[in-house]
């Protein structure tokens, strides 16, 4: 399980990006681990763990022609790869309100101080151009316990004076 890379590709979305990139990797003798691929705005973003015997430069030469053809920017890092530790989130935080700059920084700043380790965060902007609203959902680990996060949120709510809704709830995994 050695020789892992984190490969990131970003570019204008179009049909066939996943198929063509993964085909190039497969033909180059690479194996994929965990991956996150999604459209953000009009861009398509891919991050994947790639396991290969190739060195960094050879791996780039395997992907580059396809990436260029598709207009994707490429970023590659060698990493300490491990497939198996999957930390399970034990807390969920949902935030929404009228959109303005600084919500993410403010909320995650307080939560980080209270021990939140974020595992998954997604945000979106909805509403109309004149009245946009902001939505954020976070899953993570409360490394200092739920109470610390609860206190941090109380403090945040005072600072934000009711302009943003923030809800914290425990997440449980049912081992069945």
């Amino acid at each position, binding site marked *: 399980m050695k020789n892992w890379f984190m490969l990131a590709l970003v570019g204008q979305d179009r049909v066939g990006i996943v198929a063509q990139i993964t085909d190039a990797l497969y033909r180059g003798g690479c194996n994929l681990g965990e991956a996150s691929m999604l459209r953000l705005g009009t861009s398509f973003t891919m991050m994947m763990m790639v396991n290969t015997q190739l060195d960094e430069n050879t791996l780039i030469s395997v992907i580059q022609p396809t990436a260029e053809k598709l207009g994707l920017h490429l970023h590659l890092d060698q990493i300490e790869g491990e497939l198996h530790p*999957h930390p*399970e*989130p034990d807390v969920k935080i949902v935030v929404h309100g009228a959109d303005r700059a600084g919500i993410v920084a403010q909320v995650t700043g307080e939560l980080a101080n209270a021990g939140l380790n974020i595992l*998954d965060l*997604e945000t979106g902007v909805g509403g109309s151009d004149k009245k946009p609203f902001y939505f954020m959902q976070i899953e993570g680990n409360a490394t200092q316990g739920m109470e610390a996060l609860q206190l941090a949120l109380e403090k945040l709510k005072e600072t934000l004076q009711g302009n943003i809704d923030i809800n914290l709830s425990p997440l449980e*995994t*049912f*081992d*069945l």
Partner: protein
Amino acid sequence: MMLEILTYPDPRLKEPSTTVETFDEELRNFLSNLEETMRAGPGGVGIAAPQVGRFQRIAIVDVSSHKKVTKHHGRLVLINPEITDWDGFEIAREGCMSVPDYTGNVIRATHIKLTAQNENAEIKYFEMEGYEARAVQHELDHLDGLLFLDRLVSRRHDLFQRKTHQKKK
């Protein structure tokens, strides 16, 4: 006696199970081994016969050890179970003894009605909710060759799908 748990991607986990016809000493011995195996597991709250390679419609569920669960029926031996009614839905993360080191979000009914036979072939009727209802739905899926992997929901959009606007006639 502890039984060996089949783990994914063992293709036998996809096999549908058949109705139990014979309620005898052999069945009761099996149930005792199945329960022992369940209680030794990480969750220890549910198991289905096909998980140990016996393809019969049998499950055991006992969520009473779970600290937050208030409503439950204690130890349940469910033979030839049928869910007759579903109500409400909720997303929660599930794990399974047959799918080690992986968990995922699954939608389940929050309230169910259920009939099943016990080890003496008596037909029982249950109404259950919450964790117990989730555990039963998860175990009964095994009887149809389904894993929670077959029911994973998208982390993004499943709950928020827009209603399709219907054109006025």
